[in-house]
């Protein structure tokens, strides 16, 4: 019954938030959180499995956007767009978390989860706020691609089992090389995905679900397997269309149950500090990226403000690897930064103008 409940509530939330052009992610989570607190929603095995399907389709979808050949061709621009984002935000959150008294592993999960912006919110707001003509929009898109690649690495790092590290890494390397190899050969079966019947949808969905089998039989992390399976099919654009409906439905359910899974233990100061540096870090890295690529401060502010929102990846990383303490902080950070980020992205042009105006006055 809780699934029906979750699906209906998420549908209503989606309807309302699209009307107000407000991001859906924080609302799904908040709804789950509130209903979980009231005891209306109880975690069940089915809910857990559907959430898992949500995570798989999200990461599979990410993989679909990591086309090895395309990335290799554009490695320069991708690298320079994403570099500052990584070297500012990740260490900043890591060391501040340590200073706040978190353990090394907690700090690592916090910085992994909060380094990554929400592609869903960021890209959607570029479209909705009609910013696609600007050069900064392209930089932001490449920055997201860079983050996607780093996510794959973060999954590996968070999954490292030091007792069998050699076998683990060997297995991953073989798997990764195989995926890259297959991605080049995949055009041969493109026909399967171009048909008008139900075959393409079925194939896309079942290939994504194969990640469960890879985890079961080869101990390859589910999340990593999902990304790599997506990567194999990255040359076939149609698969993206096929998997999107699954992603929309199951990810909404994932957010909802993610919200209900944690009790918010209000550690006021720690949460506040972490949220603050998550915001400041992105503005800082945005400014540096803007300087590097566009030689302009206002481009940097635009990039910074546009990438503040955290969302799906933060939720998935902390849900998979975090303890309840870390989960509640990241959850608050997602709710807060996604709402603020959507708002700031909308008014970024005015903010830039205001900054230019004040700097001229000074």
């Amino acid at each position, binding site marked *: 019954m809780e699934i029906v409940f979750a699906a209906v509530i998420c549908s209503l939330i989606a309807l309302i938030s699209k009307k107000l052009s407000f991001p859906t992610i924080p609302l799904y989570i908040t709804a789950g959180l509130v209903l979980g607190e009231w005891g209306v929603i109880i975690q069940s095995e089915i809910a857990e499995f559907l959430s898992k399907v949500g995570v798989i389709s999200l990461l599979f979808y990410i993989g679909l956007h990591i086309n090895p050949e395309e990335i290799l061709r554009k490695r320069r621009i991708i690298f320079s767009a994403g570099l500052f984002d990584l070297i500012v935000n990740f260490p900043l959150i890591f060391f501040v978390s340590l200073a706040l008294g978190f353990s090394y592993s907690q700090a690592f999960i916090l910085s992994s989860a909060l380094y990554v912006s929400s592609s869903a919110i960021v890209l959607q707001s570029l*479209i909705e706020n009609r910013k696609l003509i600007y050069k900064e929009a392209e930089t932001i898109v490449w920055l997201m691609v860079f983050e996607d690649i780093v996510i794959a690495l973060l999954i590996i790092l968070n999954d490292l089992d030091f007792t069998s590290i050699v076998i683990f890494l060997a297995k991953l390397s073989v798997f990764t090389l195989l995926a890259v190899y297959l991605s080049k050969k995949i055009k041969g079966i493109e026909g399967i995905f171009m048909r008008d019947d139900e075959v393409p949808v079925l194939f896309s969905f079942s290939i994504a679900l194969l990640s469960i089998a890879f985890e079961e039989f080869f101990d390859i992390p589910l999340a990593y397997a999902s990304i790599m399976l997506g990567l194999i099919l990255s040359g076939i654009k149609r698969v993206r*269309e096929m998997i999107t409906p699954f992603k929309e439905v199951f990810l909404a359910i994932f957010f909802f149950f993610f919200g209900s899974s944690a009790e918010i233990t209000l550690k006021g100061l720690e949460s506040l500090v972490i949220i603050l540096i998550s915001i400041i870090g992105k503005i800082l890295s945005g400014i540096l990226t803007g300087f590097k690529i566009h030689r302009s401060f206002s481009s940097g502010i635009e990039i910074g403000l546009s990438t503040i929102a955290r969302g799906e990846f933060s939720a998935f990383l902390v849900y998979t690897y975090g303890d309840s303490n870390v989960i509640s902080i990241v959850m608050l950070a997602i709710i807060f930064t996604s709402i603020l980020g959507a708002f700031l992205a909308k008014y970024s042009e005015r903010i830039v103008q205001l900054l230019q105006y004040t700097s001229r006055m000074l």
Partner: protein
Amino acid sequence: MYVEMNGIGTKYELETESGEKIAIIFLMNRKIQLYIQEKCKKLCSAELTESEAKRLSSILGGAPIEREKESVEVDFLGIPELTVAMHTYRVGKNLAGKSIEELAIREKTGVTVIAVSRRGKTIISPPPHFTFEDDDTLVVIGSKDQIKLFEEKILGK
């Protein structure tokens, strides 16, 4: 010149001689965003559906359907060298009572009679033994040259 924007769509950009910018982005949800930016001025944009974008493109492309008085010429997108012309004619006394076969329209000119309108009724693909009557309107299809030949040899213009 186009840029693949991962997760968004495909962006085409154009800068005019006067330095104004136009960008068209084909979004993944099949909508199309059109941006126009005057030099150093505020941005204008519109979001179009597929059919609206097609209408706009046919206007900008100089209209693929070229209207003459009684004929249309159709260019097919993607095959620039293929132009098909259709023309309508009113049957005069000189053709009345003769059939398509008798006139050997196809053999002599290469055009095909695809439809005849007779007293408000339409006959699509008339058979070879079809006989014209005074005041029929016929629609022929062929290349521009073939239609010219048809006018000379059959209609005797």
